[in-house]
């Protein structure tokens, strides 16, 4: 059994799974139940000057019957009195000394930061997380993403916190910026001990077309909110990886954004995260999902012969390079399994309308000199069954892999390596050799 425990900038946790600062971490009672369920740590719902929230406050995207693929909120930070939160933090830490209790903070002035950090440290909490990310409500008050979007301001404010704190300080970044490296590096320069990302993405999930009010509807109005859930994972993965591979980022990263399964978590860790945080998936299905997060990750590490989470960390980072360093000689071509094809022809129409018209069905002629390994089989099965079995003109196929993504039958369209031993050559190689002029791509 692989060792799931981690050490994140000195923060010890029995596993890499932390609850993100959000409704599931609102109270000590919730957090302690989450620890019982198996969560390794929790980032307390952001403390600060207590707020008033709206009703309703969530929006959601459903895709083909799958609920909450994307989730959006206009909730602010904690609405509970500071003393109550502090008392509960102390109790949670006392009762769960082996779990990571991290407290998220968002206040305004340097004095405010100094005071609240002192109060939180007195509870015995393991670390602080500075919420520079909230994209609604708080930023209008000069906090949250208003700080996270200005690297210089972030550096100053984070610097105040680092100066006042004797426990590790994590800076939580907003994705609502052009280049995540700017706030990330600013946090490192401010002396932060870790980065957390992403917070939510500015969004409107939809519009109630009868009332002509965007979601979520608050009376006759609405406002933009913060987007999260499975839909944001790709954005978060990129930002985590971009920071993790930058040599200036010397501090650990807590990956957040759309994590629902152990696979998602493994991907964040493989791209450089040291811990991961989860919000929407818990709001959807409860604390109990952590059981499979741990179990699945542990079986996965075992199956790869890795003994700890640390061995997985960053494993895929080396393969993440700039476009110009990709191998232009590498070539794949689509292969439709004639036995599995159900004849929907989605691949055919996609290739024709959005690519190079390399997919066919029935005995249409094959261009002279072109290869189509499954053509005869596909035609034979189509003739015998009436199923519009498709086949690929492999010579025409560019290997874009659009068809393999949209095919509804698992394992039916695969991409076969047809590089044929051609030596590696990247765009940058070509520029260096002068076979291409430097210019635009992408």
């Amino acid at each position, binding site marked *: 059994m692989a060792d799931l425990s981690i050490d994140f900038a000195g923060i010890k946790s029995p596993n890499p799974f932390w609850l993100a600062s959000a409704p599931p971490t609102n109270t000590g009672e919730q957090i302690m139940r989450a620890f019982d369920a198996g969560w390794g740590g929790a980032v307390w719902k952001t403390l600060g000057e207590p707020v008033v929230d709206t009703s309703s406050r969530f929006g959601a995207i459903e895709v083909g019957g799958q609920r909450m693929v994307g989730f959006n909120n206009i909730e602010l930070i904690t609405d509970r009195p500071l003393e109550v939160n502090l008392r509960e933090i102390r109790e949670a830490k006392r009762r769960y000394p082996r779990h990571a209790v991290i407290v998220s903070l968002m206040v305004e002035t340097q004095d405010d930061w100094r005071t609240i950090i002192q109060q939180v440290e007195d509870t015995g909490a393991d670390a602080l997380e500075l919420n520079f990310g909230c994209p609604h409500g708080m930023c209008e008050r000069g906090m949250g993403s208003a700080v996270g979007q200005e690297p210089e301001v972030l550096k100053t404010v984070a610097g105040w916190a680092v100066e006042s704190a004797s426990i590790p300080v994590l800076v939580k970044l907003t994705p609502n910026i052009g280049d995540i490296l700017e706030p990330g590096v600013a946090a490192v320069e401010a002396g932060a001990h870790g980065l957390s990302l992403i917070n939510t993405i500015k969004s409107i999930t939809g519009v109630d077309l009868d009332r002509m009010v965007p979601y979520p509807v608050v009376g006759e109005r609405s406002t933009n909110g913060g987007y999260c859930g499975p839909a944001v994972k790709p954005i978060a993965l990129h930002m985590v990886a971009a920071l993790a591979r930058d040599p200036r980022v010397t501090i650990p990263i807590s990956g957040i954004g759309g994590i629902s*399964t152990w696979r998602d978590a493994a991907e964040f860790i493989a791209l450089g995260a040291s811990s991961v945080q989860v919000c929407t998936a818990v709001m959807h299905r*409860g604390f*109990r999902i952590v*059981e*499979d997060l741990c179990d699945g990750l542990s*079986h996965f590490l075992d199956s790869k012969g890795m003994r700890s989470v640390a061995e997985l960390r960053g494993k895929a980072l080396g393969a993440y390079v700039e476009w110009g360093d990709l191998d232009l000689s590498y070539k794949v071509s689509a292969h439709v399994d004639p036995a599995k094809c159900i004849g929907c022809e989605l691949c055919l129409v996609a290739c024709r309308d959005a690519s190079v018209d390399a997919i066919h069905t029935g005995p249409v002629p094959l261009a002279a000199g072109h290869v189509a390994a499954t053509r005869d089989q596909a035609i034979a099965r189509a003739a015998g069954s009436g199923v519009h079995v498709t086949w690929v003109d492999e010579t025409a196929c560019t290997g874009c892999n659009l068809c393999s993504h949209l095919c509804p039958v*698992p394992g039916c369209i695969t991409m076969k390596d047809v590089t044929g031993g051609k030596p590696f050559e990247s765009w940058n190689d070509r520029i260096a050799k002068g076979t291409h002029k430097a210019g635009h791509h992408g």
Partner: protein
Amino acid sequence: MSATPLPQGRLEQQLEDGKPLYTEGEAVAEAHRCLFCHDAPCITACPTGIDIPRFIRKIGTGNLRGSAQTILSANLLGYSCARVCPVEVLCAGACVYNAWERTPIAIGRLQRYATETLFAQGEAGTLLPRAAANGKRIACVGAGPASLAAAGYLALEGCEATVFDRNPLPGGLNTTGVAPYKMPAEGSLREFEFLASLGVRFEGGVEVGRDVPAAKLLADHDAVFLGPGLGGDTTLAIPGAEGAGVQGATAWIERMKLDPTASLAGVTRAIVVGGGNTAIDAARELAQLGVAEVSLLYRRTQADMSGYAHELEAARAEGVRFVERAVPAAFVRENSVLKALRLSDGREFPCELVVLAIGQASLAALAQAFPDVATDAKGRIVVDAETGATGNAKVWAGGDATGGELVVTGVQDGKRAARAIAKALGIPVRDDAPMLAGHGTVRT
């Protein structure tokens, strides 16, 4: 997975799998339909208390090993249960989708997918870690689901557990009785290999009470579990009952499943007498084997039947004629050849074969060979409902012999007895011992 010792050319091999193994895509798609309910009613409805939403979610996330572990710890026979359980009246019958008039989750098929895939990978033996040997010896009488579960759970805790069966093959009715369109005998033997990999030993062809006296079994072991199931088919005491063409249902089914010489040559009209699930199974099997006219005769009405409505419906869809208020009076024979079955109201049903599914005898005599083991008026072994304990401090019992009716209830009986035996023998049970999973988890 194994070189099975079963001969080829068995009638059961002509029947098709009614619910074939899902492909990966099918399994993942079905798993994603599961709502992952809180306090899920399916768990309550499963006699062994498998954490169903949990194992299904693990299929969805691609954690198949964890999925199989979840299933098999609560139910060591989770593979055969996946295939033979009447899920319509158990887990799937309790699925919240029913209340919404939508198709319930195919729990049995998902359970089969997870367990069969792990079996096929040859990794099942490493799923559930075994405790070190503790020197305790356990004997289980009968190698059916109840005994196999008891033996498996105790073997996992380090006992030397041996199952004795008069049949040369292990599995009990899973091997000799369940309908082939649910699971052919190979499935049961494959499951036994998994149990053997946990340390369960099998002594086939040994009849307890004849080949090994009860006293010797008691003397040689620290505890004995009785799981002998039921006895032979009940016969009909009416004229013409003796002779060819009239067979007991379990005897006929066993031959259909295992005996390559069994044949239906010359049978175009068959009658099954009875109103339980064995009767419906036999009728469906005959119809699926191509007997042109199969009639199911029951002495009362459909409402009084103990067989499941969904099974009767399936039988009718397969062409079985169902006849209510049919009370057999005599077998009509010409030159001793069976020609028809005559009812008490004078109706006659021409036929070449009559299969009697009107009950099975009890094995009370075997039970009584064990001192202080009591049986009730119906010949069922009297046990403590919580533990399966009998009047003899060294003897526990479960399964059909104690009134059980399903594979899955037999498994739960075996698991409960395993817990009680471990406690009685002072065997240290690990905190994460599989025997503690599922319903009725009382720390020993």
